């Protein structure tokens, strides 16, 4: 499925058989979905504008719908969404960066949050705005992480005062995110055609 070349001709001719395995998708035309990204499950998937899904990123709408906000990046090997057997929707707000190997099962992840490499957010958790999970950190099921929190050093948490008080730092982070999306747009070839039925 993933190896299929996304030529337009192909899409038109075989469109009836293609989305059979894929979930019902609403994908913004400005989003970039790599050819080898996976969208699985049967619940609806909404991908907003300027989203970048890297190759081998996985949107798993098996236990509920998945909504990905504008300017989000989901990296290689990262998984967003609940697996089969668990019920619940997953919402990523704007400017969420899910790094490679991370797994997001959270109910909601606030804007500007960075989920570090191989970090885990278990089901039912909520993560606030402009949070940062450093690599391999874990947020347990049902936990709540307040706005501007940094989760680091094996579960220690700290409210990042700098970002609370300074609009500029927040803007800088948003700007960085948008620039990163711009750069990735040139680097990641788009293959979203096959997901649009």
């Amino acid at each position, binding site marked *: 499925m993933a190896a299929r070349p996304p030529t337009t001709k192909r899409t038109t001719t075989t469109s009836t058989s293609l989305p059979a395995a894929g979930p019902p998708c609403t994908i913004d035309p400005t989003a970039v979905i790599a050819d080898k990204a996976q969208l699985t499950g049967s619940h609806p998937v909404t991908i907003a504008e300027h989203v970048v899904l890297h190759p081998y990123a996985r949107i798993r709408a098996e236990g509920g719908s998945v909504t990905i906000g504008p300017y989000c990046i989901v990296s290689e090997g990262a998984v967003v969404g609940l697996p089969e057997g668990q019920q619940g929707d997953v919402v990523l707000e704007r400017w969420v960066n899910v790094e490679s190997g991370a797994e997001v099962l959270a109910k909601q992840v606030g804007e500007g949050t960075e989920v570090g490499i191989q970090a885990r957010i278990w089901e039912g958790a909520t993560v606030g705005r402009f949070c940062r999970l*450093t690599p391999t950190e874990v947020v347990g099921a049902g936990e709540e992480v307040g706005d501007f929190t940094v989760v*680091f*050093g094996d579960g*220690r*948490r700290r409210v990042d*005062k700098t970002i609370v*008080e*300074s609009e*500029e730092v927040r803007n*800088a982070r948003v700007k960085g995110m948008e620039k990163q999306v711009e750069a990735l747009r040139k680097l990641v070839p788009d293959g979203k055609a096959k997901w649009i039925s």
Partner: protein
Amino acid sequence: MAAPFPYTHYACPCSSSSGPVISKRASQLEPDEDQETFNPHDPRAAYSLYPLDHLLFCDECSQIRCPKCVNDEIINWFCPSCLFEVPSSAVRSENNRCSRNCYNCPSCSSPLHVTQVEKQDDGMLKPGDGRTGDEAYLLFCQYCDWTTLDIGVQFSRPTKITEQLNKARKARYTVQQPDSEDADKTVSKQLRNHDDAFDRLSVFYTEQMDETGESGNSWGSAYGSPANLARIMSLYGGLTHGALKKSREKPQPMREAAGEEEGLATYSPSDQDMDEETLQKMQTRGWDETASEEQALSTPANYGARFKDELWPAATTLRTKRGKRCRTCRQFIIRPEPKSGSARYRIRIIAHNNIPRLSLRPLHPIGPVQNPSFVMKSDHAYKDPILQPLSAQQFVLTLRNPIFETVKISLATPATTPGRVASRVTILCPSFEIGPAGDVWDEALSSSTSTIRPSDGGRSAAMASLTGTAEGEKQPEAGKIWEKTRNSTSVILEIVPGSLRPTSSIGLRDDEVKETVEEAEDDDVLEIPIYVRAEWTVDVHGEKGGEKEPKELGYWCVLGVGRIAA
């Protein structure tokens, strides 16, 4: 022993009962005369036995050196972050920390980076931060996002961070000069700052030392200061009558610091308010906001910090490069290159390259020989080899020569192993030669041809036909080398493991046996002490064909064979 069987441990002579061996020639200590047989079951043995790769070698003394018989010497100090080499004279004055731009995060201890930010116009900054231009710089932790803005500090330049940080800290913690009414309070507040308190105390005591004059000389440290030394010298020079008289006066006894002006911080009832305040703060902010002990001890600036927002970045602590010297002859055995960026060694004499290595394997292995490091599955987990008592077993003992000369080896071992369980050990060929080590390429190219079979003459062929063994199969023979390659030689070791139960107890009942046998830990481990003596000649001054100097080296090894079945 933690090492998997079969292992070889080498005994360092430094902890033998005869003390450190000073004699230059190892031949002077005959194993049977000067030294007693090494007993691996002796409780002291554990302190002198090491695997080969833990040992060093001193080529002046021709002796093995273990970590206990070398002295560490600091070659230089450097900052691990900027790799700047700090001269030893400056190390102390800089408190063993980097005085450049290297800082660690007080929150998570990872290194901080200098980051540029655009100018901010919020009211957070205090006037007098010395900000000029449109640029401002921060120290920023890339791991936990801590920045110096958390403590309200920004820098105007990306360099000389230490200077700017000290300035900011001084501006923060120095209170106005005590000209107002509550001067006392100001002073006591100042004393909370360790630096201030220390400065005041040191000023006071220096004054005291000066006042008491010569009595200070009785202190060992008094000679350290040039001023004192000058005064002592002037004592012996011409002195005026008055000065002489004064010097003979009974000196005033030294006084301790008594007041706040002198740097003594005492508890006063007004401190209680402060304590209450701290307690209140702790209650409202909770555990997460309270600084941990580790954080508070990260740098002297944080010693008094109670809360996380009072923590200042900690300057990176310096690292050292160390050399190792032989304790006996003070020669460098290991000396790293002083350049902080390089990981190479100038001198590195390790035992691995200087003494023959012994390794043991069974002659007829039961299963495939496996290295426990490579075992993947738990069902193939390493099991100690079990030896059947009172049945002869043969092992191949291989000695590999790391030096570039042909070495003559003599092996010696007690006929029965020391310890409670006596096993009989026979080395079929105790003296032989090992060829020189050489280029790895030579070895690889010639290994297929250089294996010399021991005298494969008509006699052995006749023996083979008589005993009915295949022609390729060798028989261990007394006085014969088993196998020889270019720089290694193997001989056969015959072992009859002793019984855990004394043989005399056959007629006794089981419970009686238990009474007589005192089981000690690891008594069932069969360890064979072997004394190795290596002799070779070296060319003096490194010239070929010149004068030859004989060299000898003797050391005890312990071969761990396995556990004896009960």
